[in-house]
């Protein structure tokens, strides 16, 4: 039986779909019975989703142009 402590170490692999079938089952059985872990998993998922909902930062057109120019130069020197 998975402990709560172990579950908190597996939560990202669970959310990302990286667990094996058996581990996924064990994970599900645990959160089915444990309210605290259910809450923990929800919070980690909410955190990841909230990061995706952060407003996109602004970049001044001048700075963007200058940095893209540098990027192109940099790539050239890497190729040569």
């Amino acid at each position: 039986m998975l402990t709560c402590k172990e579950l908190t170490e597996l939560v990202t692999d669970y959310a990302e779909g990286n667990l094996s079938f058996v581990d996924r089952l064990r994970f599900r059985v645990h959160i089915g019975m444990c309210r605290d872990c259910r809450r923990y998993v929800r919070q980690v998922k909410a955190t990841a989703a909230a990061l995706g909902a952060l407003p996109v930062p602004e970049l001044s057109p001048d700075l963007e142009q200058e940095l893209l120019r540098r990027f192109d130069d940099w790539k050239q020197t890497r190729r040569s």
Partner: protein
Amino acid sequence: MAEEVVQETWMAVLEGLDGFEERASFKTWLYRILANRARSRAVREGRSVPFSALADAGPEERVDPERFDAAGRWRDPPVGWTDQTPERLALEAETRRVMEVAVAALPATQRAVLVLRDEEGLETDEICNLLGLTVTNQRVLLHRARTRVRQALEAYMRGGRPC
């Protein structure tokens, strides 16, 4: 435009990011780097740190083992954020700042993985290619980064809102 700003940003971009092949992915990265740099600077200068508890929280990469009993069960379970949807967390000024500060404080590679995965929604393969990471390392870094940011949000929820 100040040469200093360009130079500083450029150095931040080059730092550990040898892998960019496409202008588009570079551009995506650029926006985030700049935002995160601005945040770090604000933090250093003591502006916009929402509450002192964050500084004390330390670089926790997993849940504090003290919060579990000997059998690995929660002794000190997570507090509830009953009314918090991801959208609200992202748009409410205080929680947004908590997340931004937590992301800015991450070690560089963790931050890179988290930004590309959770903020930009890139697939794991793309991230591994961009940053030159193995899939296993990418998973570990993402896990640590998310754990820290969740922790920062919890610390904030527990500490109550700053005045």
